[in-house]
């Protein structure tokens, strides 16, 4: 059962991942990315971390992608959809991608350690309580640093999106820019 679910989720995730890169219209590729993120959240449940799955949906799907779509809708992308697809340096890029893919393929197939499941017994799902305790004790400093970074990003986004003259568009951008 689990195996079938994994195959289903990973197939859809891979397909929509390709669509992100291949779609001409940014809206389409954003929606493909949303699909991909939802599949990845489902995979997180298979990996025994429901909390991360919900956070994934909350932050990535509910906030980041909505923000993306908001910006895309504010800009005029109809003419973008007709513009040139690839960059000038595309051949070099293709080469790099090929090397990267080959390298990963090589590492994954030649390394025998990960091809078998070495944990015996069913792995237990760590509770949210454990997760929270570890986060707030052992990783307190990184946590605080992350929150400061979020604050800085918030202020930065507001400053960037703010225009000199107070036009009406600022309010919308502010509303979009403040989130996360």
């Amino acid at each position, binding site marked *: 059962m689990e195996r079938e679910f994994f195959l289903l989720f990973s197939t859809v995730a891979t397909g929509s*991942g390709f669509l992100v890169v291949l779609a001409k219209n940014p809206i389409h590729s954003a929606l493909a990315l949303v699909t991909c993120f939802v599949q990845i959240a489902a995979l997180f449940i298979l990996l025994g971390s429901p909390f991360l799955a919900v956070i994934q949906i909350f932050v990535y799907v509910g906030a980041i992608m909505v923000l993306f779509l908001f910006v895309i809708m504010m800009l005029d992308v109809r003419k973008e959809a007709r513009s040139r697809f690839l960059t000038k340096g595309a051949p070099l890029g293709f080469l790099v991608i090929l090397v990267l893919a080959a390298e990963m393929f090589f590492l994954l197939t030649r390394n025998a350690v990960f091809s078998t499941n070495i944990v015996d017994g069913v792995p237990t799902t760590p509770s949210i309580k454990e997760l929270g305790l570890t986060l707030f004790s052992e990783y307190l400093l990184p946590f605080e640093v992350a929150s400061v970074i979020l604050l800085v990003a918030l202020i930065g986004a507001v400053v960037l999106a703010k225009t000199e003259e107070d036009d009406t568009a600022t309010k919308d951008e502010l509303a979009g820019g403040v989130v996360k």
Partner: protein
Amino acid sequence: MIPVSWYLILAAILFVTGAAGVLLRRNVLIVLMSLELMLNSVNINLLAFGHHFQDLRGQIIAIFVIAITAAEVAVALGILVALLRNKHSLEVEDLAILKG
């Protein structure tokens, strides 16, 4: 049980897809989205290893990744909106003004 290598292969495929988007596409928005895809594939890896080795740290680092990504996207989109106000273009090559 699903062998951890399956997750690694999936993550690798998504990572390469994302990298292709970053390197090949001209549209800034799609480049940003491909970046998100790469970060997510890394998250899959983190959680897969955390699950595999029964270690909480995988989840915790994934939480940090998600938090920092949120910050990154907010700033990136802010920069994008500010840029578009000055230069009406969404293409990567038109935005290379620092190159002189």
